[in-house]
């Protein structure tokens, strides 16, 4: 059996090694990074069967759990690190063709550290270690958002950074309270002792952590960085950020809420917040013209949906949420990756300028549409099943409260469908403009020469196709997927306990 | 030869600093100190140039503590002087900026001179340029260069030029 700590160490060591390699071999970093991601994928696959039977508990520096740091590689950890490394691997393939400037070594280093940070977040079982990995994740994303060094990227990065810092500040205060009252940092230990705390302390810790980690998880009032950051980053990075970064933060928050703090009281409020997030995201996306902002707002909407699902307080809901995360990762990555080449080829961010681009880039456009359909929740794509499961799980709670939330979710879906299909129609049938004079098919307002638009390179199409397979044929493996997500749900809803680790 | 002198002197000084810092003569500390200070001196050899100018003659070795004592005395005097001025409600000051000349050439010597002047009665070195020192004087007693030089810097310079080339 492989030690799960390698999942963190391999990309980290590779990131440290890249500057050395760069001296000898200028472009070697892209292949090295690929190799590292691939290694992580393989390790994850190898570990998955073990983990589904019994979580692996790893001590660091040979000290037992409450004293030293430890990692807990349960189904959640391994599945999410698989999601992370697979997405990372595919986006790395994409980056070969997409990122072509002088500082690619730095790009790949940052990329690997982003993977490290997010993998660490899902694997760690120590709350301060979580903070450290959270910061690694955040900082690498700040930099990557500004990677192009253009005005928008920098501005978005600054906003992201300030908000992330305020969030981590709140998080640290929560850690301080925990340590002050409980004298421990290990999550299992906290879980054992937490219920004995006074109400106001528990409230404070939970709310602080929600509003601290919530910044990265893009819960509604805290997500104001998201549209800017996701739309200004290089598309490959947007794919990562939307693809797994926010989801990882979200699932970690919920893991804390469920299995560490047992704070089921907040779930109703969170469900409401989730629905608000969803509605804000979908409605705001409806008004966007910049394709990446549309996608970014749609991510907010999806996060709201996932949050709602996670707040249902039933295994079915969490399991559905994980399924939705998988779907969102694949679909949103496709959308961002494809839109990256749309932007690159046409030089415009407005989707109304991509009129009829489907004739020039057929595969990309097709996958764009399929991914969009999956996000909307159209059968038989994966997104439908996850959304259906979420809705059913919510309805299964049987209360009017959840039923009304579900109806709002469905309302959001309608809006989502409206704007996504508007884009899809533009891709295939040209621009549409709702003026009083009616239908206008004036393809090229921006003066883009569609004839010169070529197809995307193979390095971009392959990852998109592979992700497309997940989206389109995912439903064939629904039973298997549900098995895995079910065990994750089991892990999240079970209270952690120090005794159970040994 | 001068290079080696500077090198050894710096090594010596760093060693002294190390021993004082650790406050012990335990063998492991000494060895570590030797190795580390050697490393520092070797790695940053260009910084040894300052120390080449220090004379190692019996006279200079004797004069070093003398300088220290003179300096401390002047310093105490200066402080009392400043203290009096500060406490005095009338605040008897007559500030000004004057220039003085020095005959010292070595940078180290000029630096020590400048620092000494800064810490002594009512004067503050603002800059050193070639052989001129620019002084802010809280109570200007002499405005021309020669007189100022004599009044402010001479007592230090006299000793310093024996210690440092």
């Amino acid at each position: 059996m492989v030690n799960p700590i390698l999942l963190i160490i391999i990309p980290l060591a590779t990131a440290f090694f890249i500057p050395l390699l760069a001296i000898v071999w200028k472009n070697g970093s892209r292949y090295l990074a690929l190799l590292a991601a691939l290694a992580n994928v393989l390790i994850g696959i190898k570990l998955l069967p073990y983990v589904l039977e019994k979580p692996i508990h790893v001590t660091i520096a040979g000290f037992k759990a409450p004293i030293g740091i430890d990692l807990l590689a349960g189904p959640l950890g391994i599945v999410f690190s698989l999601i992370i490394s697979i997405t990372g691997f595919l986006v790395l393939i994409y980056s070969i063709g997409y990122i072509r400037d002088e500082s690619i070594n730095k790009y790949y280093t940052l990329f690997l550290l982003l993977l490290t940070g997010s993998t660490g977040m899902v694997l760690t079982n120590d709350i301060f270690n979580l903070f450290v990995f959270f910061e690694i994740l955040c900082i690498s994303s700040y930099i990557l958002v500004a990677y192009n060094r253009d005005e928008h990227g920098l501005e978005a990065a600054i906003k992201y950074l300030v908000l992330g810092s305020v969030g981590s500040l709140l998080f640290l205060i929560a850690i301080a309270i925990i340590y002050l009252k409980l004298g421990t940092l290990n999550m299992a230990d906290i879980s054992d002792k937490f219920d004995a705390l006074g109400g106001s302390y528990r409230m404070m810790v939970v709310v602080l952590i929600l509003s601290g980690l919530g910044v990265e998880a893009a819960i509604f009032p805290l997500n104001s960085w998201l549209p800017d950051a996701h739309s200004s980053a290089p598309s490959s990075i947007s794919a990562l950020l939307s693809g797994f970064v926010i989801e990882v933060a979200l699932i970690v928050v919920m893991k804390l809420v469920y299995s560490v703090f047992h704070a089921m009281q907040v779930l109703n409020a969170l469900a409401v917040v989730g629905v608000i997030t969803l509605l804000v995201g979908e409605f705001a996306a409806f008004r966007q013209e910049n394709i990446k902002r549309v996608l970014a707002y749609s991510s907010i909407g999806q996060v709201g949906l996932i949050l709602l699902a996670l707040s249902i307080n039933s295994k079915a809901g969490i399991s559905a949420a994980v399924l939705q995360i998988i779907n969102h990762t694949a679909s949103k990555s496709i959308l961002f990756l494809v839109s990256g080449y749309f932007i690159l080829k046409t030089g415009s961010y407005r989707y109304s300028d991509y009129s009829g681009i489907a004739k020039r880039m057929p595969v990309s456009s097709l996958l764009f549409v399929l991914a969009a359909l999956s996000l909307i929740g159209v059968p038989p794509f994966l997104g439908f099943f996850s959304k259906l499961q979420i809705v059913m799980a919510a309805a299964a709670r049987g209360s009017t409260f959840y039923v009304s939330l579900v109806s709002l979710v469905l309302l959001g879906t309608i809006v989502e469908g409206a704007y996504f299909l508007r884009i899809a129609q533009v891709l295939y049938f040209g621009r549409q403009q709702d003026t009083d004079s009616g239908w206008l098919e004036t393809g090229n307002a921006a003066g883009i020469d569609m004839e010169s638009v070529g197809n995307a390179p193979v390095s971009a199409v392959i990852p998109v196709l592979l992700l497309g397979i997940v989206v389109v044929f995912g439903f064939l493996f629904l039973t298997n997927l549900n098995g895995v997500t079910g065990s994750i749900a089991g892990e999240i809803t079970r209270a952690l306990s120090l005794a159970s680790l040994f | 030869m001068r290079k080696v002198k500077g090198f050894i002197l710096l090594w010596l000084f760093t060693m002294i600093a190390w021993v004082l810092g650790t406050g012990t003569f335990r063998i492991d500390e000494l060895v570590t100190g030797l190795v580390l200070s050697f490393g520092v001196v070797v790695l940053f050899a260009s910084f040894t140039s300052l120390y080449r100018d220090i004379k190692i003659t019996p006279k200079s070795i004797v004069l070093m503590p003398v300088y220290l004592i003179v300096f401390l005395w002047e310093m105490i005097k200066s402080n009392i002087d400043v203290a009096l001025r500060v406490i005095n409600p009338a605040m008897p000051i007559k500030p000004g900026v004057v220039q003085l000349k020095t005959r010292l050439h070595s940078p180290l010597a000029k630096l020590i001179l400048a620092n000494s002047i800064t810490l002594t009665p009512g004067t503050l070195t603002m800059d050193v340029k070639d052989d001129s020192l620019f002084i802010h004087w809280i109570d200007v007693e002499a405005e021309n260069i020669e007189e100022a030089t004599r009044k402010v810097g001479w007592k230090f310079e006299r000793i310093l030029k024996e210690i440092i080339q």
Partner: protein
Amino acid sequence: MAFSMLFILPVIGIVLSLIFVKVDFLKNLINLTIFGALVYFNILLLNSVGETFKLPFAFLGQSLTFRVTYLALYFSLMINGISFLTAIFSWRFMRERENSSLYYVWWLTKTLGMFGVIFSGDFLTFFLSWELMSWGTYFVMVQRGGAAAKASYKYLVYAISSAMVLLAGIVILYASFGTFSFAELSKAYSNISTGMLILTLVLFIGSFSVESAVFPLHSWLPDAYSETFSPMSSYLSSISTRLGTYGIILFLFVIAGVSVIDRLQIIGAINFRYVIGVFAVLTIIVPTFTAVFQDDAKKLVMWSGIGQGGYVLLGIVSGSALGIGGGMFHMMSMLTFESVILLSIAAVEYRTGTTNMNKLGGLIKKQPVAFIGLLAGIIALAGIPPMNGFVSKWFIYRSLILSGYPFLAIGAMIGTLATILAVYKLIHNIFLGQLREEYNGVKEVPFDMQLPIWILIIIVWGSAVFPGITFSLIAKIQSSLGLTPVPYSLNGIATSAGDLDMLVVSIVFVAGLVVAYMVYLLGHRRKHVIQYDNYAAGHFLNKDIPYNYNAHFYAGMEHIFEPYRKKIIARSEKSLAALTGTIGDYLRHIYTGNVSTYAYYIVAAFVIGAIVLGGVF
């Protein structure tokens, strides 16, 4: 075997069409074969009513089930029959059309979805198939691009909305009763609470109303259906809409049951069905009057087709055996006459290239088959003997009056009036009047395109004369749903409240026509003149100033109705879209772009969270 062939064949068709996407002949041949085979297998299926089928895999612990019922068979027969005829028509029509390479793929996809909807045995299957069908419809409509894309987008928004409402209903049912199966749900409905009943009724009926274009939700239909390729227009308008009606029937009679629904007495005698009936009547009146003012032939038919859908609904909600039978029958008649009208128009379009009635006229001599088809269609549409529209409408009126819904009946009759006006405009503007110069070279369409028209004419007439053939199936459906079956005979019905013998009616009617024609011939009042040897309103006619009443055909009526045609629906749609936009605008103004404000949000979120959650810990 026969059953699974219904699903396997379209899949094969899709795959082959994709493979031979560039080979027109092969593609057409394959698909014609497949549609033919589907008809065959469908007929075979008549022997296996009551059987159920399961898909080999399960989802959410629910197996996807199908069952064969008479209701389903009725619909599948309609679907397959019309598909086959349309396929024959399409062979030549679709040759070398732009953007039509995936024509059959989308069509078959839609067909597949429709089969799934009608044969499904539980709501999960139903919903999946429903989505497949909606998307199939969308792709069928959108494939032509251009204006079709915009119209289809409207459909899509409606369809997604309706699907979401449907999903909400299904999920609520699942949450309450823990099952998707129709059989179990119908058991559960016998003692359902009133609130739940109202909620589900609103959700399901509301959702199906979109697909079946019931009054306030109909506005997507005319543009969407008419902008696509003409054979598809015909196909869609004749059958696609009826799947929504299928949903309503399914919900009202299979799931809920009339007796359960009738527990809902709203005010006095006005029960829930009456409310639906009011909407049905509005569906008849408003679109039909809109149809009168259309300039495009296809749009005109579409608008009046919406009205015909209203008749179907009206018949079904009337609740009596006669009414349900009439509604069911009207579905069949509508299928045929809409189809024949639109195929005729398509035939005209095939030759002239336009369906704009202002640019047509006088084609009667050039395209007589199309004329006859159209004539047969509009007779049926207007509900005049001896065509099948008369039979169904007669049933419906009859049942409405007998069930004590006179106001609904009156409303429906007003609709008929408008229908007559509309169809007269249709036939006049296309076939009568003066032939335009540019259409001098127009010929009749070739025989393979005439064939479906002829077949449909025969059905339109035949099913009217012998309604019993259709009613035999309808009666079986009714008894399988636990309703009283229609007391039918081969050529009509015979009940205590009066009977109808179509054979007699037809003979009388034909005899009357013959008499009238004789009178006409005997009168010697006709005279052949050359087209331009004529005058109108003091002007002599020539090529440039044709005798033209096409535009503003009902100018006077337009004048009267203008103040009432406020396009409320279109406006409210627009303002809904604008509202969505405005909400979006307001919501996104939260993101002010000022980073200090954003930071403020975070801490404010904490404080608010602490205040809100302070109590629950």
